[in-house]
């Protein structure tokens, strides 16, 4: 059998490794600043680019797509070549992938700071960047599949199925959730609205967790854990079962982000049931990971990379137990909108994704540079700092979440709400401080790692040429007698991709089709009308400033919520909301029925300096809204876009829109004048006030909603 000689491409792995480290530090730092802003509001600096509402998406995008993203590619490019005994299909595609991805990250950081956002969590990037993401993702897939087709090892190891499923599902999620109609180069409106947008958004959002944060990292676990521990995975058979179960079940879980909201009950129930079922395949992965080390636990004591991997897999198990528990309606009733969710996210993010990445880096860098790790002691210190950091992050957030929730729901014996919302905010401060200490420890650990790895790199010499040899695949495959179909698909990557795509598409189709087509799922409310042009402009300012990162707009049908905020939110109220802005967190109070609660002047003063109206508030100041002129020229384009999306503005309304806008602005300016505030009607604050005063008002006149 003739042996073919070839070389592995280590350069691309090195590049992705460097990017992982750099963006990891950037993303964690952004997170730390955001965490401190919550108790030192002055750190918002009263300029648009650094407010919490704009910094939060910079943090999430940096840690998910820049840190974990580059980590995925680092691990995939290393393991794929060696599992397939083939060099990457195209060095050019590798380079385009790398530089394209970094370009996306830089554009993301700049555009998000500038407020160019879609207002949809984890999908904030505007449409030009969405297109770029699609192109770069195709390049990645092309390169990966090209390598698979050129392979010298016929059978696809389990890690590769996870990479294939990741590729095809992320493509599906990104494309479907990013369907939006551009209004200008940096602004678009979601094609979906209200309840439908919420369902699509959280189908995407949860599966971003599933297929960007989980499946590729499970693939990495299946390669690097056996590799570092030098033992085969505990049960290959278990990996087959849990792979298919995982990719089928995960997709359906999206509605667990929407429990007790206005989405239809049947969708909520599907989300609950499938989330609970998901414990099984998730724990299949954890069990496989941990039991791979049975009989080899002594290795963990001496190998710092393994220490990180063990904690990572354990954190994965914790988070994938907690997630299904949080998906039970009774638990969600307590946890939703609180810091408990933040704790849950960070167990997965810091524990699973962070620690797995660190473990791989500590093993990979010395190998790539043909030397030993500069300091085992420093790496161990990183391990303990990081672990302590995770604990100090999560425990205060659990405590905070429970405290918030109990206080929100607390009634006096006379039947009144016991606490003002502001009281609950004040109580959170010590926990925010503790959490930021946890985050600092975690970041310090990462800095230590960076120093350690830089010293390692400097001491070593890069292994640019790594040769291997293997026989080429025989042209035809002689199958064993009685071979099962799964063996067949393990040999056929394209079929595996197609079957995976079908499997992941089923959940989405079943959850969307009735929600989109059947009238009864979103009962029409006759009194709900489209936003006026001024209110639409104000809404876009709300989206731009990222208000949804702290304020929800979805009142749940609980007495504690209806007492505090007003009538609970109905599906039909959101039919013109492109995109929906229900929010995920109540750092500040819910705003769904804010309209008419306070006079216009209250809002003017509050945006200028929140503490003037709400002493003790941690909300940033927004002084530029009082000075900046509204971009009135965009109004016509926006009305046209909304009409294209089906919002029933009257025929040729665009011609009237600007004058209507000026009229409404004039009324607001008059109201402000009566309260002693002088402003020109063309300022952004006037538009924002118009929007805030509209919120939740449409059904206030209704005694009963029209139900069909």
């Amino acid at each position, binding site marked *: 059998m003739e042996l073919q000689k070839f070389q592995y491409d280590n350069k691309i792995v090195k590049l992705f490794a460097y990017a992982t480290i750099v963006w990891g530090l950037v993303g964690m730092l952004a997170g730390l600043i955001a965490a401190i802003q919550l108790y030192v509001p002055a750190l918002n600096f009263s300029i648009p680019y650094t407010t919490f509402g704009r910094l939060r998406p910079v943090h999430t995008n940096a840690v998910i797509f820049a840190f974990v993203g580059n980590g995925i590619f680092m691990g995939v490019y290393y393991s794929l070549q060696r599992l397939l005994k083939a060099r990457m299909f195209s060095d050019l595609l590798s380079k385009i992938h790398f530089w394209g991805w970094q370009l996306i990250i830089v554009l993301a950081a700049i555009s998000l700071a500038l407020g160019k956002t879609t207002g949809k969590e984890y999908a904030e990037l505007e449409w030009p960047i969405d297109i770029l993401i699609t192109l770069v993702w195709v390049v990645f897939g092309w390169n990966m599949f090209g390598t698979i087709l050129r392979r010298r090892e016929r*059978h696809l190891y389990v890690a590769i199925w996870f990479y294939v499923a990741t590729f095809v599902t992320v493509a599906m999620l990104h494309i479907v959730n990013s369907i939006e109609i551009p209004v200008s180069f940096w602004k678009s409106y979601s094609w979906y609205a209200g309840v439908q947008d919420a369902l699509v958004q959280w189908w995407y959002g949860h599966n971003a967790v599933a297929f960007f944060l989980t499946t590729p990292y499970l693939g990495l676990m299946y390669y690097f854990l056996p590799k570092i521990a030098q033992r*085969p995975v505990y049960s290959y058979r278990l990996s087959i079962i849990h792979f298919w179960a995982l990719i089928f079940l995960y997709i359906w879980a999206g509605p667990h982000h929407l429990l007790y909201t206005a989405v239809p009950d049947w969708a909520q129930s599907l989300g609950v049931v499938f989330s609970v079922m998901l414990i099984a395949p998730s724990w299949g992965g954890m069990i496989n990971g941990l039991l791979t080390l049975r009989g080899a636990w002594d290795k963990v004591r001496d190998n710092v990379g393994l220490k990180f991997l063990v904690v990572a897999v354990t954190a994965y198990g914790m988070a994938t137990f907690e997630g299904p528990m949080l998906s039970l309606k009774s638990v969600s009733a307590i946890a939703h909108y609180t810091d408990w969710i933040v704790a849950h996210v960070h167990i997965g993010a810091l524990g699973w994704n962070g620690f797995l990445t660190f473990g791989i880096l500590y093993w990979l860098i010395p190998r790539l540079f043909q030397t030993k790790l500069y300091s085992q002691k420093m790496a161990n210190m990183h391990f303990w700092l990081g672990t302590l950091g995770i604990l100090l992050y999560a425990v205060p957030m659990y405590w905070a979440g429970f405290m918030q929730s109990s206080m929100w729901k607390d009634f006096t014996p006379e039947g009144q709400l016991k606490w003002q919302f502001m009281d609950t905010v004040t109580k959170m401060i010590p926990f925010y401080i503790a959490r930021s200490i946890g985050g600092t420890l975690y970041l310090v650990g990462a800095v230590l790692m960076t120093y350690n790895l830089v010293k390692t790199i400097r001491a070593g010499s890069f292994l640019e040429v790594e040769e*291997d040899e293997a026989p080429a695949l025989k042209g035809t495959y002689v199958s064993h007698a009685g071979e099962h179909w799964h063996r067949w698909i393990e040999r056929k990557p394209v079929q595996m991709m197609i079957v995976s795509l079908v499997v992941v598409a089923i959940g989405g189709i079943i959850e969307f089709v009735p929600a989109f087509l059947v009238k009864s799922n979103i009962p029409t409310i006759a009194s709900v009308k489209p936003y006026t042009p001024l209110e639409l402009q104000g809404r876009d300012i709300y989206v731009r400033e990222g208000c949804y990162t702290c304020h929800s707009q979805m009142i749940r049908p609980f007495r504690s919520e209806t007492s505090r905020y007003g009538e609970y939110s109905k599906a039909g109220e959101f039919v013109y909301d492109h995109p929906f802005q229900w929010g995920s967190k109540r750092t500040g109070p819910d705003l769904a029925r804010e309209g008419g609660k306070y006079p216009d002047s209250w809002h003017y003063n509050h945006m200028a300096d929140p503490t003037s109206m709400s002493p003790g508030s941690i909300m940033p100041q927004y002084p530029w809204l009082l000075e900046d002129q509204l971009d009135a020229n965009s109004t016509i384009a926006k009305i046209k876009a909304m009409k294209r999306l089906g919002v029933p503005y009257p025929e040729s309304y665009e011609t009237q829109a600007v004058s209507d806008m000026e009229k409404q602005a004039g009324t607001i300016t008059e109201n402000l004048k009566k309260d002693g505030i002088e402003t020109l009607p063309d300022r952004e604050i006037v538009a924002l006030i118009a929007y805030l005063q509209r919120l939740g008002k449409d059904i206030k006149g209704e005694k009963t909603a029209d139900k069909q």
Partner: protein
Amino acid sequence: MKFRNYLEDITGIGIYPLISLLLFTIFFALVTLYVIKGNKKHFEELSNLPINDKNSRS
């Protein structure tokens, strides 16, 4: 593109989740059977793929 008002109801829609459940259950059952009855040697060979490459030293 407003989809509401297209349909009052999708009669018999219950068949689709049922088909989906059946597909999944049968698929799952078959995969489990395969895994239980499968060739042990083959699985051992596959699980050693990450270890049997050039880079195998701890």
